[in-house]
């Protein structure tokens, strides 16, 4: 009994420490005080000033960039990754397949800073002006491997004869693709898309190195620039609260989806 209490207590203490900072930020996003910890009465002014005023403009633009880069890179990674997964799935085991799966693993194992610097050096060497396009390309390069890994297991569990059957029944390969393969892997493609989107909006290091100096900011580089000037400025509190809620929502969706697909497989 005492053992149980100690064990439970340990977990509770750890969870409190893990979540206290986020809770503190969320609570104090509803007051105007400059110094965190001072409570000067309930107010939603910080939330209002987030979306209006001089500060608001640059931040709204950062949010727009984050979302548009997230959606575009997730869409491109999903298409590229799905096509690649179908290809890899149909490759014979051998050098080619090993090479591509090895290369596919690199972006996932590489530390962000190395991925960022390596792409920065590439863009510099080629002479490309860095900005929106280079950030997008960088994000596609580190998101696609995750899409490939999400779609591959679904392909593996698919009955290969169904595709052949469609061809035997007179479907063209592209009809067989759209009417037979895609419907079966659609849900894992969607999971890959959401995963890629989450990774993209969450990224900081790679974006920082590939955004160039034309003034492009995403949310995380915006937060970094702001925090570097003066620590945790009051405006960041509502922003971080909103980001935390967004990540929580996305993760809940991903988890419900994966739980549901497990149930379907049974």
């Amino acid at each position, binding site marked *: 009994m005492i053992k149980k209490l100690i064990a*439970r207590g340990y977990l509770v203490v750890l969870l409190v420490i893990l*979540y*206290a900072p986020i809770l503190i930020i969320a609570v104090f996003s509803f007051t105007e005080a400059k110094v965190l910890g001072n409570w000067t009465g309930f107010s939603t002014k910080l939330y209002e000033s987030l979306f209006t005023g001089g500060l608001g403009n640059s931040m709204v633009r950062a949010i727009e960039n984050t979302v548009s880069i997230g959606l575009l890179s997730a869409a491109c990674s999903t298409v590229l990754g799905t096509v690649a997964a179908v290809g890899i799935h149909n490759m014979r085991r051998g050098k080619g397949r090993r090479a591509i799966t090895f290369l596919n693993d690199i972006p996932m194992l590489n530390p962000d800073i190395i991925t960022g610097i390596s792409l920065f050096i*590439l863009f510099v060497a080629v002479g490309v002006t860095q900005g929106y396009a280079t950030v997008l390309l960088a994000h*596609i390069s580190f998101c696609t491997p995750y899409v490939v890994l999400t779609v591959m297991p679904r392909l593996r569990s698919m009955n290969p004869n169904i595709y052949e059957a469609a061809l035997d029944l007179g479907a063209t390969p592209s009809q067989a693709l759209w009417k037979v393969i895609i419907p079966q892997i659609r849900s894992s493609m969607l999971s890959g898309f959401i995963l890629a989107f989450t990774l993209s909006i969450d990224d900081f290091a790679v974006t920082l190195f590939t955004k160039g100096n034309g003034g492009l900011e995403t949310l995380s580089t915006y937060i970094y620039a702001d925090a570097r000037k003066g620590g945790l400025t009051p405006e960041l509190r509502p922003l971080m609260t909103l980001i935390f809620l967004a*990540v929580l929502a996305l993760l809940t969706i991903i988890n419900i989806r994966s739980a549901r697909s497990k149930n379907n497989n049974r």
Partner: protein
Amino acid sequence: MRVKRSTWAYPYLVFLILFVALPLLMIAVYAFRDAQTGAFTLGNFARFFSTPQDLNTFLYSIQVAIVTTLLCLVIAYPAAWILSKSDFNRSKITVMLFILPMWINMLIRTLATVALFDFLRLPLGEGALTFGMVYNFLPFMIYPIYNSLEKMDSSYIEAAQDLGATPSQVFLKVTLPLSMPGVWSGVLMVFMPTISTFAIAELLTLNKVKLFGTTIQENINNGFWNYGSALALIMLVIIGLTSLVGDEGNTRESEKGGLI
């Protein structure tokens, strides 16, 4: 004759070569090139070993990474063990709560630590750095250890108990060795990102402490691409070595496991 579907992998292969393999190769090329003449040189590496400031930052970063990893391990193992025991915890939601922070932006978690220290009126500095690092990476240690403990076949433990082992013997001779693969991957998942972090230490120490990642970033930002690449290559080597050691540890442990 229809197109073989294995050819569908080729566009992605080209993409990987262009945007994954080539950039890494470029780092290596820049690292061995003189900034002015572009000729082959080992000068960038020589400069690193003869710049005490950078060398010290490098050694200090390794020290921070080791301390962080050890602290995470000491805190995470009991937590993972409790989570995996059905007598103490039956809910998957508790496990989820421990894993969830892995998905929140590192920068945001760091600023959350800053918020905590502000709130408690504690000064930022080395204490905040250690706390912040452990806070950031703890979930990455708990998760793999929990996984290995969770998957463990409980009949091993029962067998040990039946054969008269005391609880501490069961733990030291059965549970711990069988969970070593999880420990190793936890160590890798904490050590590798800690050694490569940047921007975090500055925020936690009000620019008093600099880690190696920041040294690299500053050099790249200030246009010292060749020197920066050399430093990045050094970091890659350290990370490569760590993962080799981790793999080695893992296979050794699983071989041992096979003998049981």
